[in-house]
């Protein structure tokens, strides 16, 4: 919650292109407010925006200054594993990467979600049903190695992608409580384990 206040301050001095027409924007907000209703596990309040979501709601990215401010705030949300243990079981990681389920109004609980990684990324040698919204992560560990720096960055990216690219299309898996710490550890193993099909043919 604290992070919203500082970003709000920056955004206030950097008006958005379309906020220039205040009357139109007021109508837009009223329209959105009147157009949605709660359903299943998705409460109506979910449509109201966080400040960074608002700043990223245009065809082009906001200014570099706004982007940097958002990234700095999002970076603070990242929690690294308290036990220093970054890797779980790659086999479970594969299941989490493949499952795109969770957090829609058809889902029963908000606590049992997939990562949906394959919706956007190529990951392994054998899974060809991958999306292309994100970059290819094929042979991720093999190509980047497992230095502390790479491991920490990757954890951070999965935890909160907006810390590295303010308007990234990738969800904030840790910060937005989409995945648990344990699930993210499994995904890390999937990306880095030499025996995972991400790295081994």
């Amino acid at each position: 919650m604290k992070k919203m206040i500082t970003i709000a301050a920056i955004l206030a001095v950097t008006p958005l292109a379309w906020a220039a027409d205040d009357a139109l924007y007021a109508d837009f907000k009223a329209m959105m407010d009147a157009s949605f209703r709660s359903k299943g596990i998705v409460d109506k309040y979910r449509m109201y925006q966080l400040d960074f979501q608002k700043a990223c709601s245009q065809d082009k990215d906001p200014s570099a200054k706004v982007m940097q401010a958002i990234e700095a705030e999002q970076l603070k949300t990242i929690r690294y594993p308290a036990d220093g243990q970054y890797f779980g079981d790659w086999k479970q990681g594969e299941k989490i990467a493949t499952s795109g389920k969770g957090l829609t109004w058809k889902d029963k609980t908000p606590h049992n979600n997939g990562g949906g990684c394959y919706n956007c990324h190529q990951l392994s040698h054998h899974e060809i049903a991958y999306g292309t919204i994100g970059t290819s992560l094929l042979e991720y560990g093999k190509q980047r190695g497992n230095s502390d720096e790479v491991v920490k960055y990757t954890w951070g990216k999965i935890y909160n992608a907006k810390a590295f690219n303010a308007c990234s299309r990738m969800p904030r898996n840790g910060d937005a409580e989409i995945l648990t710490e344990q699930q993210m550890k499994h995904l890390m193993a999937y990306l880095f384990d030499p025996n995972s099909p991400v790295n081994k043919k």
Partner: protein
Amino acid sequence: MRNRTAQFVMAAGMIALNVTTWSPSALADAATDEIAKYREMLADGNPSELVAAQGEELWKVKRGTKNATLEQCDLGLGPGVIKGASAQLPRYFKDTGRVQDLETRLMTCMETLQGIDTKELNKTKWGKGEMEKMEALVAYVVTESNGHKINVDMRPAQMKKMYELGKMAFFYRGGAMDFSCATCHGQPDKRIRLQDLPDLREHKGAAAGWGSWPAYRVSNGQFWTMQHRLNDCYRQQRFPEPIYGSDVTIALSVYLAANGNGGPVLTPGLKR
């Protein structure tokens, strides 16, 4: 009709089989090819013909407290004119003072001509009760625009404003996953898993995306209206539910239709 449906189900089975036996590298392209093939196969028999035939019957049935038919319904081209009407929707209607898409305009006709309480639709599941009737009517009406061109009249100030609101809605990020329509439909040549995603900001993608809906969906054997398509995209966006016929759905429809203006109308479409 029954024959066609049988053929159709068989084709769906064939695809499922092929998907499991083909070599991985060829699969992505092949699956797209196969769908194209199978559209060809159905060129003279889209399963929504059955739904449209029900809609045509329903159009002429006396219903509601006024015991009237829909035959005098004005979809924008004058009372009773259906040919080409949905190719020109959404449109600004002077009588209601609103921009309306096909479904909200049909609601107006049901209310004013027939005295049917359309608030029920809001509580009805897709494919059930009054909603099933709405779907049939939609299938009937859009079949009569097949082969026309998308032709929405963007001159009225109300349409221009709806376009701007629709554009804002298109880029509006929120929800548990920070998604907007643009997350999935805001870049050229992307796909989610194996499904191609049209870039709806541009003419080509919008024409293909808007011009081929409403559509029959092979994967679940259902006829989907445009309201249903948008509803399901908002579900995938992890948003709360857009209310049936609400302004955000109309604004988005104006944005899509105007971007696709001039493109071909191929309705009812046939989809995965």
